[in-house]
């Protein structure tokens, strides 16, 4: 798979999503057309109910679109079964959740290692988890369980878990929503470094202006549609390419 900066990782064409609850149709997405290229650092913004999380669910192969065409990493998600979707999530995608969602009974090290174990990574699993934690400045917290960490530390471990499996695309749903200013900045810098150093593509849904400030592209959703798609500055990866 070509991962050059110009390579399209996500391609959405007229994607809609309708939820049917108690015979009431709820249109979460109303024809989204969007392309995300490798190495981008994108913020998806919009008011509550605008479809940000739904879009992340679809791109993350967690849910299926109602109509339209959605290709992620060159694969048509509509044509993939449950097992193939799980396989894609495990091997090619990383997730960072608003509520951190670490496994409470596992240490930081084990939380990161767990994903690698699911990937059937062999003997180097432990070493890779340790390296990832150290790279993100979490080495000293490796043996601590989530309840022994601050919110910011937990979210950084969540990022470590998301990137340890070396995904090509990381999806983050409101990653700084529960963090104070200092921790949010630390987290954003960490993710920008990963974007810059490893070329990992990040897509965030956020309300947080600090995240928006860091994003090189901001996609605004309103009522399930893309109302604005603006590039703020060349991506870090693009910088590298130009250099």
């Amino acid at each position, binding site marked *: 798979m070509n991962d050059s900066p110009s390579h399209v990782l996500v391609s959405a064409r007229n994607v809609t999503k309708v939820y049917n609850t108690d015979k009431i149709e709820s249109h979460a997405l109303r024809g989204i057309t969007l392309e995300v290229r490798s190495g981008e650092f994108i913020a998806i913004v919009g008011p509550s109910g605008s479809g940000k999380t739904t879009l992340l669910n679809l791109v993350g192969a*967690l849910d299926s679109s109602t109509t339209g065409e959605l290709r992620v990493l060159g694969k048509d998600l509509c044509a993939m079964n*449950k097992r193939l979707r*799980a*396989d894609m999530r*495990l091997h090619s995608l990383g*997730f960072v*959740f608003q509520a951190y969602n670490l496994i409470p009974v596992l240490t930081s090290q084990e939380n990161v290692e767990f994903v690698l174990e*699911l990937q059937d990574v062999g003997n180097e699993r432990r070493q890779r988890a340790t390296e990832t934690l150290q790279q993100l400045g979490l080495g000293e917290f490796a043996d601590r369980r989530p309840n022994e960490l601050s919110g910011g530390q937990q979210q950084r471990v969540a990022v470590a878990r998301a990137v340890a499996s070396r995904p090509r695309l990381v999806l983050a749903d409101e990653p700084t929503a529960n963090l104070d200013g200092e921790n949010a900045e630390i987290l954003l810098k960490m993710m920008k470094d990963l974007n810059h150093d490893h070329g990992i593509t990040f897509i965030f849904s956020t309300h947080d202006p600090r995240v928006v400030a860091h994003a090189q592209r901001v996609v605004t959703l309103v009522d399930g549609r893309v109302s604005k798609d603006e590039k703020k500055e060349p991506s870090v990866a693009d910088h590298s390419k130009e250099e």
Partner: protein
Amino acid sequence: MIGTVSSKYALRSLFRSPVRSLLSIIGVGVSCAMALFAASWIRGGAEMQIRAASECGSGHLRIVPDEWTEKRLNSMRLADWGQAIEGVNSIQNVRSVSMRARANGLVAFGIRTSAVEVVGVNPEEEFKSNRVVYKSELHGRYLREDDINKVVIGHALAKRLDVDIDDDLYVTVSGRDEIQSVMLTIVGIVKTGSRDIDASICHTTLTEIERMTGYEGPGEISVLLDSHKLIDSRQKELAQKIGNGNTVITWKEVNPALAANVEGDTAFTKGLVAIIVIVASLGIASAQLTAVLERKHEFAILSALGMKVRQVIGLIVLEALIVGIGGTVVALMVGGSLAYYLATHGVSLAAVMGDNFSIGDVLLDPYMYGDFGIWLVWYAVGISVMSTVVASLYPAWLTTRINPADALRTA
């Protein structure tokens, strides 16, 4: 394949609600212990009945004339008993051998009579192999090889006829050509404790019955083995060596009612174990379902991270397996102790059988001992693990239905 971290996850998840996990383990363990105790009781009972039946003349194996099983005529005699005896001597694990011949008869003393089955025995062999003889209270003496016109009868029969040692009984039997009557002197009176058996014992020598009936040779050869577990293999082996005209049957065919009783008990145990497994499984399923539903969001996260269905099921089953192993330990401690007590101290049958320790013409032991052995471990592991693993399947299936999109919603 469950990895190290998954195993830690499964194990530590049980400690999230230690009381619930402990209760689950105790529930499985106690249920399994009940099953172990029941199995020990029934297996011990079955073994006791088999031993009693085989030691009361049936033998573990019996060589009889062809068609004896269908006709059961006391006038039938073995085709070539010499070859049959050679066959018996050639197989291993034989504890004792006893030859007998039977005849339908009538015993009389004065004006008192009683119908009996007169059994001609080899006295030395009979005394070694028949518990009706060697376990009984014997007034007088038992038969000897060189006895002529002598008989040993049961206590109840003696009372019915109002006879004692040295009295002469008038014995009439159906012979080859005609009815034969002889006078036999009572040398011994046997008291087994069972009125039914004591009313039926009428032993004389094999030579005497040959003389009385005119039929030559024994009608049966009973073979006691070192263990009833050898019955099937030795039956096949012996069947090859006894010549034409004879057949080898087991104690079951000699005592079909008792065999049905033992099989009924075994079926009952299996049914009981099945019920216990189902009840334990339902209890575990309920506890595990609660545990899984409490972690619904967590499983959604794992699914979002890419955990596959088989991995999720493996995780839930592993948790159940840990509970099952804990249950096995409890079961062995509780059920094993009870089974050990039952095996070493036994239970008196007096409460259920009074002083008549017999079923038909089989003299039972007054105490019943449970079975105790390594099988308890396999039973405990099998029952505990099976019930917990079966119980985990529905919660595991339910987990695979959780929508991973829930992971992106705040818990």
